[in-house]
């Protein structure tokens, strides 16, 4: 039987990587009018071959509770989902809580008179009025699979189980984009993600990383 495991990890406190990436894109790279919000979380998924999933799930959750390989309970929140034929086990934060971008954008769109700290009207209301907001979700991973193999071997040792295949080991970024069309959203996502030149791209260096566009849809405000 195959046990599929999905783990998402984010900081409990504000993630400074997100704010640095957002400010770099908005203040230094000219995406003020297009990029509304940004979010990220670490993402792992792997499959374990086993005869009986129940003890493996117990072993896995026990390992996650005591090791800091994937997250540290003192500073991270997580969502764990284990699924197998005829069963499912989840624990941790709801995945929607980790992927809070939609709620954030929706909240901005409902503000009556949004103001900054100086009492000046911010641009959010203008930007969100009668416009389409697209949300893209991407996965950034290293091109070479060495790390996946190493994590898989580590899990095999820790769980004393059959081969572990790590399918996903990277960072999921969520972008809220104010653009005119889905096609433009796709194009801007790539522009922001892939560092091709100093003025273009930030989130990955294509010389050792790659990305997958996991989803792209309009946010329901």
């Amino acid at each position, binding site marked *: 039987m195959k046990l599929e495991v999905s783990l998402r990890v984010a900081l409990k406190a504000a993630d400074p*990587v997100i704010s640095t990436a957002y400010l770099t894109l908005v203040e*230094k790279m000219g995406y003020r009018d297009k990029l509304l919000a940004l979010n990220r979380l670490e993402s792992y998924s792997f499959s374990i071959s086993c005869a009986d999933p129940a003890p493996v799930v117990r072993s896995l959750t026990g390992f996650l509770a005591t090791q800091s390989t994937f997250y540290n309970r003192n500073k991270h929140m997580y969502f764990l989902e284990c699924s197998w034929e005829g069963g499912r086990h989840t624990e941790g934060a709801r995945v929607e809580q980790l992927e809070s971008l939609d709620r954030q954008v929706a909240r901005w769109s409902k503000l009556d008179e949004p103001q900054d700290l100086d009492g000046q009207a911010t641009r959010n209301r203008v930007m969100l009025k009668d416009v389409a907001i697209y949300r893209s979700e991407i996965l950034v991973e290293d091109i070479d699979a060495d790390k996946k193999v190493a994590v898989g071997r580590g899990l095999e040792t820790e769980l004393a189980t059959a081969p572990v295949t790590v399918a996903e080991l990277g960072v999921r970024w969520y972008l809220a984009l104010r653009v005119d069309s889905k096609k433009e959203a796709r194009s801007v996502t790539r522009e922001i993600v892939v560092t091709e030149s100093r003025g273009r791209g930030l989130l990955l260096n294509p010389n*050792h990383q790659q990305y997958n566009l996991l989803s792209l849809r309009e946010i329901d405000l």
Partner: protein
Amino acid sequence: MKAHVVVIQFPGVNCEYETVRVLESVGLSASVLRWNAPQGELRSAAAIVLPGGFSYQDRIRAGVVAAKDRITDGVLEAGAAGKPVLGICNGAQILVEAGAVTGFDPGVIDLALAPNRMPDRSGYLCRWVRLSKGPAPCLFTEFMSESGAEGAFPIPMAHAEGRFVTASEDTENRLQRGEGVAVFYADAKGDRATGFPENPNGSMLSIAGISNPDGNVLALMPHPERAAWMHQVPRSVGGSWGRSRTEVGSGSLFAPGPGRGFFESLREALA
């Protein structure tokens, strides 16, 4: 009048003052310039050094946020104008993320400094390595002999993301031909390192430093400013430098160390 070198202090770097100290010790004038300072001093500088550390806490990728800073415009302009620009460790990561090296395809970022690849471990590594002069002309490496044990310079490295890689076939071919390869990790004989730990991070072709085609911009991962005086050199480095360290004992601990040559070559280039 001494030539003036500016050492740029991005938020999070931590080697700016020892870099200034070494520059001054070889007879240059040097000062620290904050990343958000007016760029007048940068334009009047004879040379620029981007020191080691953790600019912007290495967020997203080491060096990438500083590479987008306005002051980096001035660094790239200086490099394009032929002024010497040296990036050490995090400074090298900034130069790579800014596309200042290799310079084969101007404006294109054809390199990355990827996470170290080491057997049975990952992350940060700090150790002494040996460097030899590569085939590419570079004003910072003029002091190094071509090869051989006496030409291998022990210098400390300290980084988590120092593995030179490229996805560009053209760049890889040119690096294999020696273009841009200013410094490489070496074994005890001074020959190109073939594996860990001589090549401490799995860098392609054991490259430790890459220069631009004109040889005035160098992205160097090891830290020469941490090997500028003999008292910084452990006896355990072996070779001629290890013997020298043993011979000086506690007598001449401020005698020149193996890393000082990078700064002396800069002084000669500015003379």
